[in-house]
């Protein structure tokens, strides 16, 4: 598998680390135990197109949101995580 890092270009799988489904959003402070449980433990485990967190740790150390098909491993989009590129915020 190869992932096209938006910063580095296409790189081989070995440079990346996987975390998992990018859809669950960390509940805000004060969320109930049930909400946090859902975030930490339950997964849609999609057979198809899924949005995922990957880390380009063997490269530019950016966290990436990768849209990938779990049936074919086809990658259709790669975006930086929300906090990458913060230098340009407000520019």
């Amino acid at each position, binding site marked *: 598998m190869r992932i096209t890092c938006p910063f580095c270009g296409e790189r*081989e*799988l*070995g440079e990346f680390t*996987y975390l998992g489904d990018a859809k669950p959003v960390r509940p805000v402070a004060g969320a109930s135990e049930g909400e946090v449980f859902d975030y930490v433990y339950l997964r849609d485990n999609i057979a198809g197109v899924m949005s995922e967190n990957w880390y380009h740790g063997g490269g530019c150390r950016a966290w990436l949101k990768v849209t990938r098909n779990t*049936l074919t*491993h086809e990658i259709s989009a790669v975006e930086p995580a929300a906090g990458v590129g913060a230098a340009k915020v407000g520019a």
Partner: protein
Amino acid sequence: MKYSIFSLARAALSGHKNWQRTWRDATPKDRYDVVIIGGGGHGLATAWFLASEYGIKNVAVLEKGWIGSGNAGRNTTIIRSNYGLPGNTGFYELSMKLWERMEQDLNYNSMVSQRGVINLYHSDAQRDAYARRGNTMRINGIDSELLDLAAVKKMMPFLNFDNARFPVQGGLLQRRGGTARHDAVVWGYAHAASELGVDIIQNCEVTGFVRDANGKVTGVETSRGRIGAGKVGMAVAGSSSRVASMAGLRLPIESHVLQAFVSEAIKPLIPNVITFGAGHFYVSQSDKGGLVFGGDIDGYNSYAQRGNMPVMEDVCEGGMALMPMIGRVRLLRQWGGIMDMSMDGSPIIDKTPVDGLYLNAGWCYGGFKATPGSGFVFAHLLARDESHAEAARFRLDRFRSGAVIDEKGQGAQPNLH
């Protein structure tokens, strides 16, 4: 039809024309007391134990392809009961005891081979962790031995003891562990269950659940029509989330790909099952002569049943680091299976929040060794509506309560288990 050397010799005289089907080719009935989704080892074992142990014979096993086409037919055939945490320890030993009588129970030679499983350690910390685990096993009446370097050298003189990056210091040995012929386990359960009246229905894909007004599951929709059921048990590891979602359930499970490898057949080289403690590699040699080996999962969600090169290389690097004698042995085949990776690395055998639907899932990459035990306790749950004592901790609600069974201590990150 009873299998034996005598029946074989008799059949030889007639040119083997008289053999019957190993399991009946059943057509679905309208209704069964229990319908089991999934014709893998676990589903078939469950059916056999329902029929043989709990007297429930009006049972169907529904398989979307051919029986054993999932992980039962695609694993590295290792059996062992060397677990360290309450919940796992007793359960896997129950399973091991059932392995030890399997051929006689089923009248089918599944080649259960108790050749020993050794986990090598390479540091004091690893030794201590194994000692803790081995002592747990002994306290639970399970055989376990802590070997020092000299004992390991004697047993496996072919390991790299001279110039290893992470020298072997010793190992934790379970002599009763070993291997079994994976396909034969499936066929054996199918054969024996079919003889007791269980219907094994292949090419029958479940497409939905039939629910009554109260939401109770009363049957399944399939590619071969609607089939009524008193209870429905799911044993579809690899596809658990997909099937559960038809009943509106989200599970603490991710599907990941695990690769396995086999080499060309060679004369006996490796006598036992070996796991490398300083890399991702484990190996045994099949009776046919191939080295069967594997390592870590690829590490990302996948239903594609194929792996990628980095992990293949990683596994072979581990193999060469541990036993550089295999350098010129050739890798013959590589395959990938879908693992039901749970959030704590341990299985789930429980009722679901949906009445009438029972779950057997989350086996990670350890499901094969659990086959008889899983069938036994799942049959118990289906028959008695309560967990078997040895499966009482495999609850679905343990993630909510925090009573997880996390052997590796990696938390809610399935690809690290």
